[in-house]
């Protein structure tokens, strides 16, 4: 009898715990105006990638974030809040970026995130700031020449990226392994855990630069417009981002940054992504 009672107490405790936890989650987000707050503090907190060469990479030597997205975020911050404003960077992964935006740790995501209808249900996007396309990276001389060759083979992707869902449409019989980040996914490809690594061509191009013996193969099989992720209900912030984005494109800053990061990358034609 005593034992049963003990079990019951435990069950009730765990149920209560669950209810409290869910309670926290369903609580509405701070309805504060992100743009107003940022104007006061003269800082915008951006979520950037730390493992994506050319776009967002944390340099192990000085611990600074470097890449096209990082530079673009800095330029946008200056346009939005004035010359003396500062951009602060928080490292995110494909998996953590939306939760971090939702709970207010970051103001905006600029981390190789494709604008998709599914994501639009949860967050808002700015206009696209880059047009990538999904492709595959294989070992030199691999029998895989295009995505359809991957049927029956193993593909490596990254948790939370839409490329793992896309690739299933083009190679439905492939097995997909999802690893936590790109660095690990690449190491897994090298140890032979899979036959190809799939994600956006621009990310793969960055990997190919650093890893001789691996190449991009086949044409990009999707179009992936990258957008800046903004929380729902932050209309002012979104408007301001879009305005700044237009300004950096018209004054030539955008194309300068493209040339700086992609001007000399084998397997990637930077002219295709230049904007007027």
């Amino acid at each position, binding site marked *: 009898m005593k034992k049963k009672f003990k079990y019951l107490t435990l069950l009730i405790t765990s149920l209560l715990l*669950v209810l409290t936890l869910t309670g926290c989650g369903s609580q509405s987000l701070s309805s504060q105006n992100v743009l107003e707050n940022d104007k006061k503090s003269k800082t915008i907190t951006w979520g950037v990638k730390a493992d994506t060469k050319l776009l967002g990479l944390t340099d192990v030597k000085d611990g600074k974030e470097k890449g096209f997205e990082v530079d673009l975020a800095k330029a946008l911050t200056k346009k939005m809040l004035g010359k003396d404003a500062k951009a602060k960077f928080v490292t995110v992964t494909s998996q953590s970026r939306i939760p971090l935006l939702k709970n207010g740790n970051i103001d905006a995501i600029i981390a190789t995130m494709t604008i998709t209808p599914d994501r639009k249900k949860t967050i808002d996007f700015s206009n696209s700031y880059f047009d990538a396309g999904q492709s595959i990276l294989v070992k030199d001389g691999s029998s895989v020449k295009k995505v359809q060759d991957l049927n029956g083979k193993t593909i490596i992707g990254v948790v939370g990226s839409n490329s793992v869902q896309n690739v299933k449409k083009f190679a439905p019989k492939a097995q997909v392994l999802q690893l936590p980040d790109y660095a690990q996914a690449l190491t897994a490809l090298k140890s032979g855990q899979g036959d190809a690594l799939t994600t956006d061509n621009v990310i793969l191009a960055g990997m190919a630069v650093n890893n001789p013996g691996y190449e991009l193969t086949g044409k990009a099989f999707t179009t992936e417009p990258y957008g800046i992720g903004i929380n729902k209900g932050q209309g002012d912030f979104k408007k301001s981002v879009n305005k700044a984005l237009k300004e950096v494109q018209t004054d030539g800053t955008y194309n300068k940054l493209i040339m700086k990061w992609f001007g000399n990358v084998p397997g990637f034609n930077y002219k295709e992504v230049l904007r007027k």
Partner: protein
Amino acid sequence: MIKLLTDNWSAFISGFGWTVLSSVLALFFSLIIGSLFAILEVMPSKTARVIGNIYVEIFRNIPLLVITMFFYLVIPLYVVKVNGFTAGTIGLTIYTSAFIAETVRAGINSVDSGQMEAARAQGMSFWQAMKNVVLPQAFKLVIPPLGNQFVNLVKNSSVLAFVAGFDLMYQGNMIASQTFDTVNTYVVVGLFYLVITLPISYYMQHLERKLA
């Protein structure tokens, strides 16, 4: 939460299955390996004691994730292909066996040394005395800490998620990133872990009461 559960039922169940399978395998092998190293640590031979000590100290003091990554990423480069599930389960087995070795050794040490001496005086060999006299008493003593190790093992099996081992945590990550319903997903994942660990806790308590 109910909708999330029904929508992704097959993913949750398959993750649950892989977690249970990995835990059962790791539990079985780590108990055997751990007990063997525990005995090594108390053997009269000094070489045996040193070998036992080295094993325990190395694997008890390296993070589980490092051991697992080693089997997932390094071993395939030089030796043989290991998939995520296997790498995770091997890592889990080695890591847990070091803790079990320490636990069982403590148990053996707390059995009065007169027991061993008396058994040897009766003409039993070291192994006979160990198997028939010391170990049965030792295991009875270490049931509560062993139970802790088993529960830890189940929780630690979430390391499989980092090497694409298809376990509960891996499926949880997948579902969270597709539905964006992070909170509910991890609550459900937590509940599934409780389904495995609570019965273990209660069974160990039951065993303790029965044998004590």
